[in-house]
């Protein structure tokens, strides 16, 4: 359900602000300490599954199998938002990294 996915997305994002805490509150946590890679990887997985849902719905609508207009539109937009969120978070992180490089040594 897309609700829990964006939910975990934002939780993953907020986890980055607390790097000392090893546990992730995502739905598929298996590893111990969280790395930047695993957090972002999970977020991207969630985004791609939301995109898959949206694509499925669009296909069903286009082929005439269902006529769920508002549902398809909502799923589309939700996937859109998730993608943009990840993109924005990635940019912020990169900016932060670059600042760090500049100040070191």
């Amino acid at each position, binding site marked *: 359900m897309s609700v829990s996915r964006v939910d975990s997305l934002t939780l993953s994002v907020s986890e980055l602000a607390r790097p000392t805490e090893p546990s992730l509150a995502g739905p598929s946590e298996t590893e111990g300490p969280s790395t930047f890679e695993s957090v972002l990887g999970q977020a991207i997985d969630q985004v791609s599954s939301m995109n898959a849902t949206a694509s499925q719905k669009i296909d069903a609508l286009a082929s005439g199998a269902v*006529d769920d207009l508002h549902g398809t539109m909502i799923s589309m937009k939700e996937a859109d938002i998730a993608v943009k969120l990840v993109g924005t978070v990635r940019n912020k992180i990169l900016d932060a990294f670059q600042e760090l490089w500049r100040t070191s040594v």
Partner: protein
Amino acid sequence: MSKPFSVSGVFSAMEVSASGLTAERGRMNVIASNLANARTTHGADGKPYQRLDPVFTATEAAPGSFDPVLRNIREVELSGVRTDNTPGELVYDPGHPDANAQGYVQYPNVNVVTEMVNLMTASRAYEAGVTSIESLKSMARSALKIGQ
């Protein structure tokens, strides 16, 4: 439903509305036939015209649909016409070519006033069906705006 809809959405509603429009239009045709033949004392079969009544039936709902709402939705169909066999009025007119041995002419059992009232009802029902379709178009437009 003739189309394989699996959920009750905008298109299924439009199909139902359209079936109503077709049925009302068919009804208006039957009424027009009655009005046109209101004074036909001698038809192709030699008998005076008998007025017709449209027969409306509900067609099968979406067979095997999982949607509980869709199962309750039926399209309407003008499945045929029924002849009204009540006799019309007899008018004494011995000079009329269709007068019987006693000098009476059998006229069709068409009451023009009744037919006109029926026509107005059918027309109003048709208009209401058109408004239904317009409402569905508005809803579809609102749904599409979400994706903007």
